[in-house]
């Protein structure tokens, strides 16, 4: 059974803390060998190979940005055309009202501006932010997940998760501590 990323790890059944990204990957391999498949991980920086191992594909956020940038650029062009040709035409030395080269700078700038905003806000929303509180923040020692610890989480919906076997597997892989938040208890 292969490891994969579970969207539903909102309430993890088990968490394990590792000292390095490599140890985290070892932990995932060990659990996957026990049949566990629904993983999430909390890391201080992107761990090389983690996303591939969990079968996470490249974010599709680029398509949102492309769509927004095209609409914004097109809208900016149309607005300029409407201002200059329809609503407020000014004759300046007989130059054409619809003057495509003169409309390009603002068209480009608006595509970049709205595309950039789409990138930022999509990254936040798709990443589940803003959400100031999350159950994992209650776990002792989790504050090091942004500094130098690598936390592995297994979703509560994973039926293959057996407490004794899983604990033994991650500890063999180098887990510094294992937490079972739902059932309580810590080892």
């Amino acid at each position: 059974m292969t490891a994969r990323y579970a969207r539903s790890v909102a309430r993890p059944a088990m968490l394990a803390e590792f000292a390095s990204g490599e140890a985290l990957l070892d932990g995932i391999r060990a659990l996957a060998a026990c049949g566990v498949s629904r993983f999430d991980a909390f890391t201080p920086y992107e761990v090389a190979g983690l996303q591939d191992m969990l079968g996470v594909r490249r974010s599709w956020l680029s398509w949102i940005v492309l769509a927004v940038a095209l609409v914004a650029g097109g809208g900016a062009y149309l607005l300029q055309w409407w201002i200059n040709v329809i609503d407020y035409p000014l004759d300046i030395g007989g130059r054409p009202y619809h003057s495509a080269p003169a409309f390009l700078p603002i068209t480009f700038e608006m595509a970049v501006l709205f595309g950039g905003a789409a990138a930022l806000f999509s990254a936040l929303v798709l990443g589940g932010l803003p959400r100031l509180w999350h159950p994992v923040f209650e776990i002792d020692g989790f504050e090091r997940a942004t500094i130098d610890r690598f936390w592995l989480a297994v979703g509560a919906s994973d039926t293959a998760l057996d407490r004794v076997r899983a604990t033994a597997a991650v500890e063999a892989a180098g887990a510094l501590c294992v937490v079972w938040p739902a059932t309580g208890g810590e080892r």
Partner: protein
Amino acid sequence: MTAPTLPAEGVPPGVLPDVLVGRPSDAELSEQLLSTTWRPWTRGWKLAFAICGALTVNLFAMITLTVLRGIGVWGNNIPVAWGFGIINFVWWIGIGHAGTFISAILLLLEQRWRTSINRFTEGMTLFAVIQAAMFPLLHLGRPWFAYWLFPYPSVMGTWPQVRSALPWDAAAVTTYFLVSVMFWYLGLIPDLAALRDRAPARTRRILYGIFALGWRGSVQQWRHHKVAYLLLAGLATPLVVSVHSIVSLDFATTGLPGWHSTIFPPFFVAGAIFSGFAMVLTLMIPARRVFRLHNVITLRHFDAMAKLMLVMSWIATYAYVAELFVVWYSGDRYEAYQPLVNRPFGWYGWAFWVMVFCNCVVTQLFWSRRMRKNLTVLFAVALLVNLGMWLERFEIIVVSLSRDFLPSSWHIFVPTWVDLGILAGTLGFFGLLFLVFLRLVPFVPVSEMKQMRAEIVHDEVRP
């Protein structure tokens, strides 16, 4: 709390130093780089803060005076209608360009030496654009109508004239500022979360926690963050070229000799990046020393920046020479008079020769590797280039305007004390924002540094 002691720089001669001296652990790196926000204030920092604060007060006093009395208090008049206001605008916005160049273009080019300095330089961009944006608004004369530059359904039934270069400027500068802020903030989120989890005082943890938005570094968050960061870099990259190109069109679309030139957009962009690198060095050399960041901002970084300055200096020199050739070749006596006679030998001839010395001559020191690693030389050259690039804009704006077609309308421009006060004030305000930034957020990106360290170690183990 003091920073953990880390290995100092010690590089054998002839070897290019590494982008990271030593191999500090994740915890050591985090402690060193995050602690810049909570280390005690030093006396030097307080002094710098006081000076910059005083200059900022002076700036706002001068702005108040300008708004109350009108821009007659500036030295501008016909024919030199664009005096210090536009020189300072172009100078400041140009400085921002190196920040975007380092944070965006070098990210796409996978240059490791940009990692530790990208947030610093992007911060410089933001603060420089803030200074720049003030000038066109004040130069309007009636800055309270500045919103007329933006299209909105006005009860007057009027709209901005979008075939003019000035609304392009408004769009370009606004976009540049907002995209820079978004790019900067997106990169900052993981480090704000680290501060939320590590800062020593509860108030700080709450404040940083709010701005971290609940970041936990989950797989999904990193997945989208990575792509969004690359996309914002990709979107900011054309801005490096477009903003100053559009600024240069304010000049090039007119018929004035000395302005009416097709070389202006690339010439302006190169000059902008050149001056920006000078400002990066001016700020980074002291900051690195004060915060003892010799292990993450190494001589490798300075070497690379000095080389880029040399390249940009040559592009600027090429543009100066190309301009001379083109005006001579055009056979237009008004065009030829400007760069061949007026600039080098006119009223402001001294400024031209100082500019040539600062922008073209002194940078040739960087052919020498020893000079590229000598921080005193680097700092001195950076200051001279800052001056030289300001004078370049002075040449373009004041010198060209003061003598145009008709000798009867020639007029010498002299700045007033308000002009000088506002220029000094923006330097102080820029410095103030920068000093606050250095203490408010980790100015070396912590999570990016940790990731880069992991990559370097990985490469070393399996070359």
